[in-house]
């Protein structure tokens, strides 16, 4: 399947790269069918929103942008063939990454072979950054282990008499969920906060009373849940049953779910959660993105769409700064510029280390007055950080 977008001012000089009125073609392969079709389509919408917004405001370097999107059917062999075709045969000027670690790694290898800049919207697992890729950049604020960095800094910066002294961790046996909890654990332990409970549970656990009994007995000041959705809710209810009251409680994913509040009996006040994207975040380009995206698609963007859009913003920033967008020498200039600079995006300012891992952290949201609000980092906060947490 081929989707072409953007105003094509066609038949104006064929393949001549020096003709600067040609549209800039961007090759993408996305899982539009198969396992990852849901997030894949989300990223596609983000890319399309980006192309439309760029074209409506005059394009890149005065040229329109045109997306060429292939469907890789969530298949790792297919994704390699797709990028080979896009770069080698179709001679696209730029490429954007696909969705999910499983597809990012093989396709990044192709981009590496052709010396193409490879900015990707979703591939946060550790292995992505252990392959020695030189052209890869992950266009999101942080990998799982760094989600809680703002919270860790905040806790460790508290005056000694207020700072919590002990912590309990419970994480699902899942790389993402564990990554978030253990990232925070490492930092808190290094800061002298003692770990009293460290539990891992299988993904299908439904009875949390045993884990809750251990946590309640430890009376830890800080509670950290490496959770998805239902497990987080079950753990909280089991802890409420045992009358455990932590001074600080943070869960990944669960608290941002729309049904979270009613599921735990509306006793949400003070519960924390990291988030990669918020429609309410006060980053300069975010307001425009939310407005125009909503106008184009009829509903507000979610995290997948934002990640796609961010990828576009990152590449656009490099193209504008380097003043070129084609295969060959230009790609090296784009990579070098991104390596040395910070890009303002809808998810905040992004910069990268030499492996392409973003140096940022997720925003921290907190339930305050019956609504979840950004409390960290300071420059985009919607409400004051609430500590200690009221009883639940």
């Amino acid at each position, binding site marked *: 399947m081929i989707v072409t977008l953007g105003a094509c001012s066609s038949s104006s000089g064929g393949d001549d790269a020096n003709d600067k009125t040609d549209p800039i073609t961007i090759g993408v392969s996305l899982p539009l069918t198969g396992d990852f079709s849901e997030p894949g389509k989300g990223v596609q919408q983000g890319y399309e929103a980006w192309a439309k917004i760029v074209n409506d405001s005059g394009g890149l370097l005065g040229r329109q942008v045109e997306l060429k999107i292939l469907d890789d059917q969530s298949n790792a062999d297919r994704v390699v063939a797709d990028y080979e075709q896009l770069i080698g045969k179709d001679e696209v000027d730029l490429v954007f990454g696909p969705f999910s670690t499983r597809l990012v790694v093989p396709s990044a290898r192709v981009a590496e072979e052709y010396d193409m800049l490879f900015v990707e919207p979703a591939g946060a697992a550790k292995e992505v950054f252990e392959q020695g890729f030189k052209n890869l950049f992950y266009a999101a604020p942080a990998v799982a282990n760094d989600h809680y960095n703002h919270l860790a800094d905040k806790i460790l910066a508290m005056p000694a008499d207020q700072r919590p002294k002990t912590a309990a961790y419970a994480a699902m046996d899942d790389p993402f969920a564990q990554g978030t909890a253990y990232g925070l654990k490492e930092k808190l332990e290094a800061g002298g906060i003692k770990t009293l409970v460290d539990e891992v549970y299988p993904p299908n656990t439904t009875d949390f009373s045993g884990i809750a009994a*251990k946590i309640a007995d430890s009376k830890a000041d800080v509670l950290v849940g490496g959770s998805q959705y239902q497990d987080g809710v079950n753990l909280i209810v089991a802890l409420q049953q045992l009358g455990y009251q932590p001074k600080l409680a943070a869960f990944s994913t669960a608290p941002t779910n729309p049904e979270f509040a009613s599921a735990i009996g509306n006793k949400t006040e003070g519960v924390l959660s990291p988030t990669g994207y918020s429609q309410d975040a006060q980053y300069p380009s975010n307001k425009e993105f939310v407005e125009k995206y909503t106008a184009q698609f009829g509903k507000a963007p979610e995290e997948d769409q934002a990640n796609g859009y961010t990828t576009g913003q990152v590449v656009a920033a490099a193209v504008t700064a380097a003043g070129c967008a084609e295969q060959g020498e230009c790609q090296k200039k784009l990579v070098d510029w991104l390596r040395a600079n910070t890009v303002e995006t809808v998810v905040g300012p992004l910069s990268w280390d030499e492996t392409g891992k973003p140096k940022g952290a997720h925003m921290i949201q907190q339930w305050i007055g019956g609504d979840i609000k950004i409390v960290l980092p300071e420059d985009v906060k919607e409400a004051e950080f609430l500590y200690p947490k009221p009883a639940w």
Partner: protein
Amino acid sequence: MPSGALLFQSVLLGLLLGGLYALLASGLTLYFGIMRVVMIAHSAFLILAAYLAWWLHDQAGIDPLLSMIGTVPLFFLAGVGLQRALLTRLRPATLTMMSVLLTFAIALLIEGLLGYAFSGTQRRINLGYGSASLEVLGARVAVVKLIAFGLAVVALTTLYLLMKKTRFGWALRATIQHRDAARLLGIDTDRVAGFGFGIGLATAAVGGTALSLDTTIYPSLHWHWIGPLMAIIVVGGLGSVPGAAIAALVLGMAQSLLQIPMGTTWAQTVFYVALFATLAFRPQGFFGGRLAQRF
């Protein structure tokens, strides 16, 4: 070394869990006793009952405990129908083996229909008293767990009285002990077996409701339950209701206490270790054999 408070809390949780296991396992052992049927679909019916409780609460705001007024008779009739329409058609010589296949298919059917009707999303009943608890000597007992335990006690006591004190109970026990002799004495063993099966499924309705009070449910959850329940009835002695109840309490307690040193993942293995040990050293189970026949 865990603190005394944690040990006491875990003992209480273990007791409550064991009570629930006892109720869930009682029906399973009854089927085997009556008909030598291995009922793989028992836990699927548990989950079905839990879904009905959740659905009625979600749609009409009916408290799960009230939903039992409808589900218990419904499941009893379904049990009688299932026995009369399907299980009696299996050849006696291969009944046990074939019943595994038949009930396995029923379990898959129920799981598939639940997934079709309610999707695979995890569900939980949000009760006003879901997080309420009572204090018992420094430990906390959740109200919902106490209700589930109470249901188990009431259901098991009723089952016990039914089996011991009524003519139907005597006929049922006679059928369990010696089917041919029972028939010679004029007991309509087919009818009795049908009713026995209905009672087994009725316990699933009560058990499923108790389950829905305090856990998340999803269509494939029954696979998570059938293993431990099978282990319980083997350890307790196949066909013995008191054996199943005692084994359930002991293993539930063991699971709860083992979670302290071993964690959630490994504590689950206690059921299978007990199953292997029983099969290796006492294949008839600890309360099976003669005790089962006397009950």
